[in-house]
C-alpha cells in the first residue's frame, strides 16, 4: 500500500489556502445572483405572465379607491385618484421585490432532500435564498419597467418625488426584501416542528395583508390599526417603501422608516440564527 501512503501525505501536505471570508461572501453572492439572473431570464415569458397575473390585485384596489375618491369630490384621506394610482403602481414593484422563498416550500425542501444536501455544505443555507432571490429581483425590476409604463398610461399617477425620496426608496425596497426574507424563513422553520403549518401561514398572510399597507394605504386605516402596525414588521415591507416614493412623507419620516427597517433586519437576523440552530438540532435528531 505504498501508493496510498505517499498520496495520503500529499493531501495533508497541501493544505488549501482558503479565500478570506469577506471575499468568499462577495463571490458567493455574486455567483448566486449571476446564476439566478441567467436562470430567470430563461423563464422570462413565464415570469411575465406571472407578473401580469399579479397586476389584477392592485388594479382592483386601485380602481375601487379611485372610484371612491372621485365620488368624494376628488380626495379620500389625503389621497387623490392620481396619488392612489401612484401608490398602487409602485405597489406592484414593491410586491415583486418582496416575493421571497415561501414558507410553504420548506415541506418539499425537507421531503426532497434538498435540505440535507445544503446541510453538508460549509455555508448557511439562507445565503442561497438571499443571493438567488436577489438575482431574480434584478430580472423582475427589468421586466417591471414596461408594465409600470403601461399602468402609468392607463391610470395617470401623480408622482413627484424628491431626490432624497428616490434614494430612500431604492434602499427601502431592498430593506423590504431582506425583512420579508428573514421573517418568512422564520415562519417556514415551523415546518421542522409540526406538520400543521398551513393554518399558521394563512393567518400570518392575512395579518400581513391588513397591517402592511398592501390592501390599502395605512393612512386610510382606523387609528388603532395604524398604532398596532407600528409594532409589527409588516409595514416596513410594504407601506413604508411605497410611501417613501409616493409621499406624503417628511425627511425625518424617511430616516425613521429606514432605521426601523434596519431594526427589523437585526431582529429578523438574530431570530433566524437562533431558530435555525433549534431547527437543525431537531432535524438531525429525528430525520436527517
Amino acid at each position, binding site marked *: 500500500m505504498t501508493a*496510498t501512503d505517499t498520496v495520503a501525505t500529499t493531501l495533508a501536505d497541501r493544505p488549501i489556502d482558503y479565500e478570506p471570508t469577506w471575499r468568499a461572501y462577495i463571490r458567493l453572492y455574486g455567483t*448566486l445572483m449571476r446564476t439566478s439572473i441567467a436562470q430567470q431570464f430563461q423563464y422570462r415569458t413565464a415570469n411575465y405572465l406571472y407578473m401580469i397575473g399579479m397586476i389584477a390585485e392592485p388594479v382592483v384596489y386601485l380602481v375601487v379607491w379611485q372610484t371612491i375618491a372621485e365620488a368624494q369630490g376628488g380626495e379620500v384621506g389625503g389621497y387623490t385618484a392620481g396619488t392612489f394610482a401612484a401608490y398602487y403602481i409602485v405597489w406592484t414593484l414593491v410586491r415583486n421585490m418582496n416575493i421571497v422563498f415561501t414558507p410553504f416550500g420548506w415541506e418539499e425542501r425537507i421531503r426532497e432532500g434538498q435540505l440535507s444536501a445544503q446541510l453538508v455544505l*460549509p455555508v448557511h443555507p439562507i445565503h442561497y435564498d438571499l443571493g438567488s432571490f436577489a438575482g431574480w429581483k434584478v430580472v423582475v425590476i427589468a421586466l417591471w419597467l414596461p408594465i409600470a409604463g403601461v399602468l402609468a398610461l392607463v391610470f395617470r399617477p401623480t408622482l413627484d418625488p424628491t431626490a432624497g425620496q428616490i434614494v430612500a426608496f431604492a434602499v427601502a425596497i431592498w430593506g423590504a426584501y431582506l425583512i420579508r426574507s428573514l421573517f418568512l424563513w422564520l415562519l417556514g422553520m415551523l415546518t421542522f416542528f409540526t406538520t400543521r403549518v398551513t393554518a399558521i401561514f394563512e393567518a400570518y398572510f392575512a395579518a400581513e395583508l391588513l397591517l402592511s399597507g398592501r390592501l390599502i394605504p395605512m393612512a386610510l386605516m382606523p387609528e388603532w390599526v395604524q398604532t398596532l402596525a407600528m409594532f409589527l414588521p409588516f409595514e416596513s415591507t410594504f407601506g413604508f417603501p411605497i410611501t417613501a416614493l409616493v409621499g406624503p412623507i417628511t425627511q425625518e419620516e424617511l430616516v425613521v422608516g429606514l432605521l426601523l427597517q434596519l431594526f427589523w433586519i437585526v431582529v429578523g437576523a438574530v431570530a433566524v440564527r437562533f431558530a435555525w440552530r433549534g431547527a437543525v438540532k431537531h432535524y438531525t435528531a429525528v430525520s436527517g
Partner: protein
Amino acid sequence: MPSDAAVITTGLRKVFRVPVREAGLAAATRSLVRREHRDVVAVGGVDLRIEPGEVVGFLGPNGAGKTTTLKMLSGLLHPTSGTVRVLGHEPFRRERDYLRRMTLVMGNRNQLQWDLPALDSFELSRAIYRLPEDLFLRQRDELIDLLDLGALVDKPVRNLSLGERMKAEIANSLLHRPEILFLDEPTLGLDVTMQRRIRSFLADYNRRHGASVMLTTHYMADVEALCKRVIVIHHGAILFDGALTDLSEQFAAHKTLVVTLERPTDPSSWSRYGDVVASTPTRATLRVGREATAAVVASILSDHDVRDLTVEDPPIDEVIELAFASAEAPS
C-alpha cells in the same frame, strides 16, 4: 485515542421514535389525543475504524442502517449514543472546517443548477468552498478530464442524460478536494457502461488523491471493482467487516464445481459427488461443501477423463444473501 484514522466510531447508535399507527378511524382518533411511540433501532452500536485512503463498501439490504450510518458520519444525523470522529471532527457539530474536507453524494439527488451549464454550478461550488483560483481551476480541469466531461459542461444540465448528469454531479462534489467521500448509491439507475465509467473514475481518483471512500451500493460489480474491504450491515449491526475475499470464506458453505468430460457418462451418477445444479452426459455443475471440495475434486479426477474443471466461490450477491440469511436464523 489515535486520531490518524479517517473514521473512528465506537458504539455508534441511532434510535428513532416513530408514532405507532393502527388502522381504522377509532385508532386514528385515539392517536390525536395520545400518541403512542415505538423505538426503532436503526443503527445499534457500530464500531468502525477506516484508515486514510481506504475504499470501503457498505452493504446491506434496504433499511439495514447504511444510509443512517452515512448520515451520522456526514453530520446530517446526531447519534443517539456512542462516539464518532471523522478526520478528527465530530460530524454532528457541522463545523465549517469539517464540511470543507468531506463530501456526500447521494445518487438520486441533484445539486446542480438544472437550467444552467454545469460550469456555472462549479463556480458556485468554488464560492461555497472558498477555493483559491489556481486550485479550483486545476481541480476542475482534472475532473473534467478524468470524467470525460469536456463536451458536456457547457450544456444546460437538464439536457444531459442521467449518467452524464451523475458524472457532472460527482465532479461538482469533488472540486474542493475532499479527504473523505461518502457515496450513497452513486451508480443507482445508470446503465452498465456508465456504471463502469464511474467505478473506474472512483478507483483512479482514490489512487491519485488518497482520499478515503465509503460507498453504499446495491451493485456487486461496484464492490468487486472498488472495495478491498467490505462492511456488511444488517438490522443496524455489523455482520462482517473484512476483505471481500474473506466474505465467501465466512458465509458460503459451498463452492461450485463445473466439470466437463471427454466422454459421456450416466447423468444420474453425478449425485454421488454433491448437489447437482445442472447436468448433461458430458457436463455438470455441482454444489459441494466447502470442506469437502478438495476430496470431491480428487475423486472426480480419478473416476473420469476430465477435459476441464473449475472451482468457484458463489457469486458475491449470493454470498451476501447467505450472510443475511445466517443473521436471520439465530445459530
